[in-house]
């Protein structure tokens, strides 16, 4: 049977389909028992609507792979942080047009444009297309873009 972690690494975030749930740090723990498996996940934001889709996807994919019993449990502590996003996933976010989060430091940083790399950008709104992103604009290439907020 294929290792559960390997299967989970193939599940992408429904709202950011270029990064996997393991790269994002949403999967916290996988516990194997005879024929079954328990996956512990942690939500990014409390109200993130994607978490229910992710749960279902985990159950479906692991069952397809032959795991008879799949349980998904939610853990809240320690609270999810963007610091857990893998370095490779940060590059994928950038290629996808989303400026990756810096290390958690809410009040002092500049955001680099993911398209042209310019540091001259401005925040349009603290809240963007999803709970985890803010809306920015590049003052050099004038393109709007999403910024994955450090949390």
């Amino acid at each position: 049977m294929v290792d559960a972690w390997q299967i989970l690494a193939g599940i992408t975030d429904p709202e950011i389909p270029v990064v996997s749930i393991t790269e994002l740090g949403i999967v916290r723990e996988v516990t194997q028992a005879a024929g079954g498996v328990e996956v512990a996940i942690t939500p990014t934001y409390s109200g993130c609507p994607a978490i229910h889709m992710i749960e279902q996807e985990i159950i479906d994919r692991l069952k397809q792979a032959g795991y008879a019993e799949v349980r998904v449990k939610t853990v809240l502590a320690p609270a999810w942080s963007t610091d857990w996003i893998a370095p490779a996933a940060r590059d994928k976010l950038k290629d996808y047009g989303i400026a990756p989060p810096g290390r958690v430091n809410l009040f002092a940083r500049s955001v680099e444009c993911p398209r042209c790399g310019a540091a001259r950008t401005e925040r349009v709104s603290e809240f963007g297309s999803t709970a985890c992103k803010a809306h920015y604009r590049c003052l050099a290439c004038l393109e709007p873009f999403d910024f994955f907020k450090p949390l």
Partner: protein
Amino acid sequence: MTSSTCELALRMGDNALILGQRLAEWLGHGPQLEEDIASANIALDLVGQARLWLSLAGRLEGRGRDEDALAYLREQNEFRNCTMVELPKGDYAFTIVRRMLFDAYQRVLLERMAGGADGEIAAIAAKSKKEADYHWRHSADWTLRLGDGTKESHRRAQDALERLWGYTHELFVPDAVDPEADSLRGPWRELVEPVLREATLALPADSAFLSGGRRGVHSEHLGYVLAEMQFLQRAYPGARW
């Protein structure tokens, strides 16, 4: 112990749920598209937090009620939210000033709760605190913009502050659920006062008025929120989609 922990979880959950409903009323009506989206995002965070708190309250209560049953099937006098969050959404200045006062309260309260001995409470508080920091940054920023903006925006922000100030008193009155509520008043004012000063808004005078939402004694406005939020489950019990 359990019953006061359950009450605390209800109080936290109901605050987030009812303010989430009030913010969601801005959907499609925001003063600009970005603010429309911001209100919806913050409402989503709050409803998500409410889900965590109410789910915990249901487990602590031990009567088989989950978060949906608590949100959709309780009567008005069973809700434990402070009165401030149930007041009608008003104009955008009212919405922003209320959120600024509430977000500051959440930040100091959640910070304290995150360091508490109860593991489940601390976990939800720590998670919510991170979101509250972003909410605060938004509402404090907009309080500045409105207070120190045009004559009209200043007038509206000051008016909102006058109307809301009396309702903040309730947050800091100690009771069996939160015997140390009073200790948060100082840290809360340290957050709120500099923002008001910079926004050129005058601090209203304190009065003897005390609202009773946390005890289940609500204003006439909560019933309308519940009527809208609960009607589907009341009309079609157990409906799912």
